[in-house]
């Protein structure tokens, strides 16, 4: 655990030293702020209810692009510049490296989500807010960010090229974001049930309405762990080449 935290701290410092964190925060808050409050059709004033659902819909998509951009360099850059050699020969396991990096990226997302809490406060002063739905919406966003981070780090571990890592992680995430639910429409019923369950969108819709079931949690946590495992194996693979 100690080692995971050491890696995590180093990565967070790297984010804030390189301005990357600030740029990401500004872009994320800017985009989600505009779409939530100012965009006309679909924004909070248009809907006319004290509900953050329009924010949740926007954030679902902004994070989809925002997270791969954070994670793309995390392993790829270490491999490209050769710093992985010094890291991997220290007494630390590959899993700890992956977990530390995951935690750092996820915390950065959590910070940016925390900075949207004023939306919630503003809304609460405008009218009666469904607190349960809002809290579960935030939990859903945090968990989904965990999934995207996990996918992003896995993609980053596949290559030493950041752009390739970015595209690969968008591609994988796109399956969960859109394609599985689309597949459910065209596939026969027996298979449709499976792809429906795999669709991140489906889980997100139920969770942001305030219903968090065990199946949602199991689904998201397993995706996160699957990403961890694949990334760990992918880093290890280099040693066996």
């Amino acid at each position, binding site marked *: 655990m100690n080692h995971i935290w050491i890696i995590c701290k180093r990565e967070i410092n790297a984010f804030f030293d390189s301005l990357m964190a600030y740029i990401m925060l500004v872009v994320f808050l800017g985009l989600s702020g505009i779409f939530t409050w100012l965009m006309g059709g679909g924004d909070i004033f248009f809907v006319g209810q004290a509900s953050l659902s329009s924010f949740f819909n926007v954030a679902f998509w902004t994070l989809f692009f925002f997270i791969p951009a954070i994670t793309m360099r995390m392993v790829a850059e270490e491999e490209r510049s050769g710093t992985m050699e010094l890291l*991997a*020969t*220290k007494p630390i396991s590959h899993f700890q490296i992956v977990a530390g990096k995951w935690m750092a990226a996820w915390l950065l997302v959590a910070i940016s989500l925390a900075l949207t809490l004023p939306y919630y406060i503003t809304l609460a002063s405008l009218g009666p807010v469904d607190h349960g739905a809002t809290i579960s919406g935030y939990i859903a966003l945090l968990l989904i960010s965990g999934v995207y981070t996990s996918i992003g780090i896995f993609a980053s571990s596949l290559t030493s090229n950041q752009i390739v890592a970015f595209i690969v992680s968008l591609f994988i995430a796109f399956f969960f974001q859109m394609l599985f639910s689309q597949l459910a429409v065209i596939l026969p019923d027996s298979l449709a049930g499976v792809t429906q369950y795999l669709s991140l969108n489906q889980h997100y819709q139920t969770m942001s309405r305030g219903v968090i079931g065990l199946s949602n949690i199991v689904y998201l946590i397993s995706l996160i762990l699957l990403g961890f495992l694949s990334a760990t194996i992918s880093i290890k693979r280099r040693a066996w080449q």
Partner: protein
Amino acid sequence: MNITISNLTKEYGRQKAVDDISFEVKTGEILGFLGPNGAGKSTTMKIITCFISPTSGSVSLNGYNIFDHSRELRSRIGYLPEHTSLYTDMSIVDYLRLSARLQNMEEEAIMPAVRRMVDLCGLGPERHKYIGELSKGYRQRVGLAQALIHDPDVLILDEPTTGLDPNQIAEIRSLIKEIGKEKTVMLSSHILKEVEATCDRILIINRGRIVADGSTGELRQRAKGAKQLLVQFKEDGNEVASSLTKLSSVSEVHPAENGESGWMVSTEPGMDSREEIFRYCVQRGWILTQMTPIESSLEDIFRELTED
């Protein structure tokens, strides 16, 4: 800690980078790992530090296999990779602190260790600079500092002096010698002088195989079993020289190279031809103007062993 390497082989596809090598390094020994580029030096070192896995064979430190006890053993190894790649976005002090933490050092021991390394490696004036701003020589020193910070028992240094100026090279050499008194040090190089100056023992490797192993003195003797003499006569001509080959202690005679005039005379192994040559010349009435024993340099040995 003793390093024992047995039957180590590493294949990249069809190519064998390291081909069935075995050797041992003892505590207090500085082993120079010498070979042309691509001989398998770095690959061997990467295997010892657990960065890559061998195709077959084993490495153990004090009898513990490095793959079964990887985590514990890695904390007792200090490693300086060939391309000293460090986090360019960190300052020297921060980087050394990170290395110390990853090496499981106690929090209160870290700052004193960092200060000691900054002094030892001469990083003082630059210590708050970002690594990205440093020259190659300073980066190399930071690499050395991170390898030494946790006081490891085994030091694996892959070309530690590349990119350093002559003064720095001298400093690093004496540092390595100092450290090598109590620890096991393995350093690779393709600069012969460096290995000769620093190491107790030399291992020459070519195409993944060990071609020579021994102290500098031993290697000299082994490689050119025969001594060589540079001989000059007042009389000139091939006739004089070629007649020397008739002597029982002389194996070959050929014209001296490198712009020197005279003849290089190789002696049969285990014999001394000087007396015989002298008597022969006296007998014929030839005047010897020079007879100098030539010690074959390590460079010759190296070339002889690693050339195809």
